[in-house]
């Protein structure tokens, strides 16, 4: 099972001939991800590491009807169009790596995707990995290991740090989802939590949050309402971030006094979620909740 991607994932890489697309195609192939086709308008007929390239997602999908997932490395100006193209071609899971996509563009394609029943991850995200099965993203594969703890995270490198600490402590991951650091993203914290709740292979969940927005507070509410019953632990970055300043991620900003780390930590602790003070504490907290 796992969530979003697994051994049944048949991937199309949009923007496969670009520098980033090519580089990560190689790394995903090395990891064992089943990539069936690449798309770059105007480059149809060529290939990248043996993967056939098409001019459009529709053509790729016609030639490889088993394709069910797409990862997008297309530059920001063309990324929204690439998402619509994938949706309209019937792709049901789309991972948008591209950063700097205008928020209005993301808002529109996320709404459109929802109306078509499509799962969009990102934009501006590291992607999704189900260790040992499929890596659809740019995370370093070797730091993850198969297991039963789901990770949902707003931050890339921080996820790697935590996953690595877990792996070293002998705690594997069912799936790790980097949902992205932009203000508007396709799959929110609580939607990813819901997926983990429904996944039989996931026994506990690590939530990696940061300042900005109210996704963590909403997650706490879901737990309070009994919608999430699996044990969860959390880490929230940005306790020392000043208000009104964007901390790297477009979405990481404390505005109008909301979105502080303190508020998020308080909300989570009030519903019984243990919040780690450092990323290194996560494995210990997980051992505590998994013991119960």
């Amino acid at each position, binding site marked *: 099972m796992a969530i979003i991607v697994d051994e049944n994932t048949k991937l199309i890489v949009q923007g496969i001939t670009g520098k980033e697309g090519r580089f990560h195609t190689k790394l995903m192939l090395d990891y064992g991800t089943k990539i069936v086709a690449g798309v770059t308008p105007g480059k149809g007929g060529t290939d990248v590491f043996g993967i056939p390239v098409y001019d459009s997602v529709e053509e790729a999908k016609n030639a490889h009807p088993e394709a069910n997932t797409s990862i997008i490395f297309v530059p*920001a*100006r063309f990324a929204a169009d690439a998402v619509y193209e994938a949706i309209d071609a019937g792709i049901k899971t789309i991972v948008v790596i591209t950063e*700097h996509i*205008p*928020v*209005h*563009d993301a*808002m*529109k394609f*996320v*709404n*459109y995707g929802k109306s078509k029943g499509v799962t969009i991850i990102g934009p501006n995200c*590291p992607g999704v990995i189900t260790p040992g099965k499929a890596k659809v993203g*740019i*995370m*370093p594969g070797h*730091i993850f290991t198969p297991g039963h703890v789901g990770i949902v*995270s*707003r*931050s*890339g*490198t*921080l*996820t*790697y*740090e935590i996953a*690595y600490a877990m792996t070293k402590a002998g705690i594997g991951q069912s799936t790790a989802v980097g949902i992205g*650091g932009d*203000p*508007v993203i396709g799959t*929110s914290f609580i939607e990813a939590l819901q997926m983990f709740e429904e996944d039989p292979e996931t026994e506990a969940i690590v939530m*990696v949050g*940061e*300042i900005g*927005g*109210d*996704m963590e507070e*909403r997650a706490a509410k879901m737990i309070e309402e009994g919608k999430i019953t699996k044990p969860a632990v959390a*880490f929230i*970055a*940005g*306790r*020392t*971030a*000043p208000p009104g*300043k*964007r*901390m*790297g*991620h*477009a*979405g*990481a900003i404390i505005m*109008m*006094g909301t979105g502080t*780390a303190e508020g998020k930590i308080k909300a989570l602790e009030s519903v019984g979620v243990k919040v780690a*003070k*450092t*990323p*290194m504490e996560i494995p210990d907290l997980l051992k505590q909740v998994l013991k119960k």
Partner: protein
Amino acid sequence: MKLFEFEAKEILKKHGVKVPRSVLLEKGEKNPLEKIKAAGLEPPIVVKSQVLVAGRGKAGGIKIAKTWEEAEKLIAELFEKPIKGLKPRYLLIEEAIPHEKELYASIIIDRSERKPVILASQFGGMDIEQIAKEKPESIVRMYVDPFLGLKAYQARKIGKMIGLKGKILNSFASFLIGLYDVFMEYDADLAESNPLAVTEDGVIPLDARLIIDDNSIYKHPDISERNLEDTGEYTEWEIKARKMGLAFVELDGDIGIIGNGAGLTMTTMDLVYLYGGKPANFLDIGGGASKELVKTAVKFLIDLPRTKKIFMNIFGGITRCDEVARGIVAALEELGGSPKPLVIRLSGTNEEEGRKILQENGIDAYTDPIEAVQKVVSL
């Protein structure tokens, strides 16, 4: 990117929104009064300092002139008066609008709903945080389908919810549709009018704010780039950093921070604080940083006066530890050694190679971030 009031109002006007009659004065204007007369304005007029900081009014940046003499005096005065540290390049001269009441109206994108949301209140004039605190029940919210747009009936409904009726209600609805059109057409993060004045004839924006999504600026060639110095958002060193392409935020401590990835960099700040230190900044070199970028970042933090020591926390994912190490070595070579203590944590992709490069140059690096942070705080 924040627009100046006069730019925001110009855009609203182009979209059919009635705004106060006005004339723009640039610093050095020879005959300001002539120019104002030529525009058909006469006292009472409002003289408004065009600076991009909030709380302009309270800081003395908006004044009413009842006579030509007063106008002349105020214009000279406001051109020279710094508002929160910024002197204006422009003054906006507007007709004074007699009004009975001030409303609040704004549009932002709601992150959870992923839709534009309209916020309105019958209590304008104070800022939204204050309204949210003092009159939370007065704030009306309405989500809009981004594909369908704001319909007139929805705009009227909002108006009715904040107590408007008749001619004023219709005028408010038209205003809101104009504001929404601008919000969508300009990829705005925020479109706001506060206060929005209620006059006998309808509503008219006394102030207008428009913040454009930085990532969408390329779509809007009619909008001219801001000088970073004019925005009031950045410190001197933040401006330097942006010009060098660094994602840098200045804080008030003394331990310089470099991390890769926004989440990890924030976490590094948090760890420093947790172990008793005070971070001097946030500096994210991002994913897959090159040797050059690392070198630039290290040199920048060494130059930054407020840093006494520097903590670099790298977890190699896409970023290669060897590349980072080469950047550090290059920086120190150029500087002839670091004048400030530098504590490095290096882990992940190509960790061994990176560590080796550092050692060859006599630099130690930690594997464990906690040990590293304890070290830097203790120095």
